Structures are given as structure tokens and as C-alpha cells.
């Protein structure tokens, strides 16, 4: 991986951190607000299904996670496990794909976009 690509990874991790900071605040505030009087799974699905706003918000949240976490994992593996080859980079891309796939699958299911 070229120094420019390594630098762009660094930029992508910082940019995704900004998105995550906002998403986590909205996510937690929503949970606290919605749970004041107790809420069932069916009621949650009733609010999220067919709502394009939640679909867009949680898609952004998942994609920011899929960018941010694998780059950090690559750094941890390089520094703490001394794994510094192409295999480490491949593991990063694989983990990114896994996070994006699992996360988007959950988002599409909760918002009813699959049904």
C-alpha cells in the first residue's frame, strides 16, 4: 500500500469518526427519549418500518462503522500483533465487508426495506 493510500486511510478514519460522533449522540438520545415509558419490539418496528429517515440515518451509521473500525483494527494488528503485510490489509478489507454486510442486513430488516 502506497504512502498516499495509507494517508487516505488515516483521513477516512478521522472523517468517519466525525460522522460516528454525531450518529452515536442521535442514537443514544433517541433510545433515552423513546424508552421513557417503556417500549416493545413491535412498537419499535412500527416506528422504523417504512421510515426512509431511519433507513438513511442507520445506513450512514453502519457505513461509518464499516470504514472506521477496520482501519483501527489494522493499526492494532500492526502495532500489537506485529502483523504488517498484505495479509493484514486484506483482513482489514474483509472485516469492512463483514461489518457493512451484517450492519446493512440489520438496517434493511428493521426498516422493512427488504419486505
Amino acid at each position: 500500500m502506497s504512502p498516499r493510500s495509507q494517508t487516505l486511510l488515516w483521513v477516512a478514519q478521522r472523517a468517519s469518526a466525525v460522522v460516528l460522533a454525531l450518529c452515536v449522540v442521535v442514537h443514544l438520545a433517541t433510545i433515552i427519549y423513546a424508552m421513557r415509558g417503556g417500549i416493545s419490539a413491535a412498537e419499535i418496528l412500527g416506528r422504523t418500518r417504512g421510515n426512509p429517515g431511519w433507513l438513511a440515518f442507520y445506513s450512514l451509521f453502519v457505513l461509518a462503522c464499516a470504514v472506521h473500525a477496520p482501519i483501527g483494527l489494522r493499526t492494532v494488528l500492526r502495532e500489537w500483533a506485529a502483523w504488517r503485510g498484505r495479509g493484514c490489509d486484506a483482513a482489514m478489507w474483509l472485516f469492512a465487508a463483514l461489518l457493512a454486510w451484517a450492519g446493512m442486513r440489520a438496517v434493511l430488516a428493521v426498516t422493512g426495506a427488504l419486505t
Partner: protein
Amino acid sequence: MSRREKGAAPPSDPPQLLVRVWRGHADGEFQPFEVPRHATQTVLDVVMHIQRSLDATLAYRYACRVGMCGSCAMTVNGVPRWTCRTHVDKVAGDGRLEIAPLSNLPVIRDLVADMREFFDKWARSRGRFDGGNTRHDEFARVAPASTERQQVESGIECIGCGVCYSACDSVAWNPDYLGPAALLRAWTLVNDVRDTAGLERLRAVSGDAGCASCHTHLSCTERCPKQLSPTAGIAGLKRAVALAALKGTL
């Protein structure tokens, strides 16, 4: 025959420092010494006393003794410090000292660390000035109040002692990492309006071995005996390198 008169109070012995000094190579061990404690005594005074009065085979390095040359840095009670200006009172309140060579560097012998990798990284980060003028040109004029000059006001005072390098977690975890001193040197040159190797230098300090590997733990800034902030310089490099990468010029 003792000079002391019978019945007179014995002279009080000077208090002793209990000093453990690293001996040998990387697989060496600490050797204990007792050193008389004096007022305004530095750690380097202690090491010199041991070498001159107790064990002449002790290897260590120093030159100026006034905090200018950067050659006497050692690990004192677990913390990298310049020993010539570190007073015993400041670091050994309980009268115990443990002195070892700088960490993150190979040990040559006793308290002498091998500084080659440290200075090789200065070269790798393109830490030398590349000017475009000849002796036939006018002297370059750098306005003291200019932004570029102000950015490096403190960084140019680095004495290359290696304390920041020894204190850096990122160096310990990533042997390729250029380290705080080399990156701070590069930052001073990035801001030097006379220098002509800006882009090459940004390339040299980018990527996994460069400024992106700094985790901003601030150990270098905390430990720098000259109160410089390599962290601030590295942050400046991060901005410059990121901008160049986004523009596609890196």
C-alpha cells in the same frame, strides 16, 4: 591515631544515595552502589562519581554538562531525562535512584544507548535542509513575525537528546515509526520558506512509518527537557500530509 578527641561527638556521615545502575548489554542487570548525597547534585554527578571513584569500567556518555549537547540522556527511575540538568532532589526524594540507558534503542554497554537508528530516522524523514540559492544570491529574508517562522519558533531548539524517542509508545509498538524528534525536525523544514524539498519531505513523513502513526499520547511533549512540543509539530505534518493526499500531489 584518630584525630577525634575522646568523648567528642562523631562527625555525621553524609547521607548516602542508594543507586542501582544498569550494567552490561540488553541482557545485563542492575548493580547497586552507595553514593554520598550532596546539595545541588545532578544525576550526572552521581554517575560521574561512580565511574571516577567506585567503578572505572562504567560506560556512559556526556559532553557539555549544561543542557546543550543532548548526549547525556538516560532513564532515571523509569523516566527518560537529561541527566546533567536533572537534580537528584527532584527525582529521588526517598534517596533511591535507578539509572538505565534510554529505552527504544539498542544498548551498547551499561548506560550507553546506540543512537544510530534515532539519527538515521532524521535522515529518512528528510531532515536536512535543501536550499535553492547559491552563494551568489542575496541572503534570504525570513520575517520573524511570519506564520511559518512562528510555527517553528520552539521546534528549532531541539538538541537531539532522544528523550522523546525513548518516551514514545508508538516507537515501542512500531519500530519503523520515525519518532517525535525526526518528525519535529521535518516540520521545521516544511515551514522553512527557503527549503525546496517540501513535497519529497511530505512523502517521507507520510504513511504508516510517518506522522499518521502518532497516537497523540503526548509523552514526547511531557518529557522533552526543552519544553518543546513535538506533538504540535506532528499535528501540523498530519494536516499538511492529509491535504497533499486529498489533492493527489502526495
